[in-house]
């Protein structure tokens, strides 16, 4: 089990509204699940591990409590995978511009 100490950068999670407290105008599938919240900050507690309820200080200095879910959280979004379906577009357009429709 990985422990974090005071000052470590972590991500926390909270349930804002349980399904029974969701707004009436929300579609049925959304009403079945809770409204969840995530934010990040520096750990204020002395020591903690994943799953603990902790207090953090966010980057701008707010104090927030929640369940510790990640240590040194990182971004994983990227440029995706190759989408072969896109590959014709550039060649098609250059073909039309260079040769005109009839020579395509």
């Amino acid at each position: 089990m990985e422990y974090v100490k005071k000052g470590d950068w972590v991500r926390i999670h909270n349930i804002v509204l349980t399904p029974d407290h969701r707004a009436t105008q929300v579609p049925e599938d959304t009403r079945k699940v809770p409204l969840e919240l995530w934010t990040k900050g520096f750990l204020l507690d002395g020591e903690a591990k994943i799953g603990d309820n902790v207090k953090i200080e966010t980057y701008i200095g707010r104090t927030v409590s929640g369940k510790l879910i990640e240590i040194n959280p990182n971004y994983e979004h990227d440029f995706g995978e190759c989408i072969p379906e896109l590959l014709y577009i550039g060649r098609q357009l250059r073909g039309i511009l260079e040769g005109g429709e009839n020579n395509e």
Partner: protein
Amino acid sequence: MNRDISYDAVIARKKDIMKQAIGIDYDEFETGGIAFDYERMMRETGYTLQEMQEIQRETGIGNTPILELKNLTNLARQLASKGKGARIFIKDEASNPSGSFKARRAAISVYHAKKLGYKGVIAATSGNYGAGVASQAAMRGLKCIVVQECYDSRGVGQPEIIEKARKCEALGAEVVQLSVGPELFYTFLRLLEDTGYFNASLYTPFGIAGVETLGYEIAMQFREREGRDPDVVVATNAGGGNLTGTARGLIKAGALNTQIVGASVNLKGLHMASDKQFNRKSFTTGHTGFGIPFSTWPDRSDVPRSAGRPLRYLDRYVTVSQGEVFYMTEALAQIEGIERGPAGNTSLAAAFSIAQELDQEQIILVQETEYTGAGKHIQPQLTFARDNGIQIIIGNPEAEIPGENIILPEHPGLIKVKDLDLDKLRKSYINNCVDIMGNKSFSNEDIKFLAEDSKSSIEFVINTLKELGITL
């Protein structure tokens, strides 16, 4: 202080929280009925165009270049009938400090917040506006919180939104991320109440008027460069602020003959607040899921009276498909050598089609671009679509079904805008005034207001009200 923080109690305090967080008493502009004094609200709470230009100049916003897309114009001419194919231009708003035109809107809000002595600003946005506010707050030394709707109940987030979160954090903001649902507003109100920060709403007079400089610049740049105003300006439409501000700026510049066209990505059939459908779309903004509801009921926003009122300014409103916008994003990169984010290219796809209806000597302008990068790019967005069970097909975009497939046009000649019936939207707006505001009697002032607010006529409003069974 022990405040009741239950959902109902916080929502009940909405009006007071907003008054504190915006510093505008909207009641001052109300008439008691449907009508409110829109122009007075814009005048008395906003800044003059010259003041806004100065505020934006201080933080490096505006005077973005206008680029002529000669290869796309040639392409359009090859596809159009003889003599048709207007010159296509693009205003490269991605060159604003935060990478989109949203910096303009943020600039005025953040300046105003600082002037009034607020310590920080909060914005509820999953879009480019977050980075705009974070960037301006960094420059002016204010704290910034951005509240995003980001994940579905599996914890899966749109790559485009996650990238925007990264950018906000990179600019020193705190990002609060939420799962799907309109109750984001509750968290937003609680944050405003707890922090006492300024609500940098997209829909205040500051948020809208900040875009007026864009419209004004368009006219000035074209007059200098081409000796005249553009014939058509196409604006991507979601919450209505982009279109409203641009149109107002053009009017302030005296460009009264420029046609204002709104364009949205067609997401018909997808419910925006549905947990399951949230990740079945490939566009998180600029789509009909915002564009139509905000046109037909602008006051659904996070302020009592929205300053973004697109129906007031729309001459035409068209939709394009997701596949068409992705194709045009690739086209912009491949034959114009300009790589920009897909959402901003919604209006480009529309302009490419509309150019083919216009004469060759006419000018059509796409009034914005946005930055691109990891997550916010055709490849990750299509990868995400594929991972969420959306079929990617090369074919006729006409057959695209949002949430089921994305159809890349097999030939650029298949890119065709679809017109929305503006009169139908106008009627829907008037109907919403009856339904939502519960108005049963309409004064002459209300009728005049509705005619202006829907860019129709007194006669049109009266007939619509009669159709709705209202006795006048």
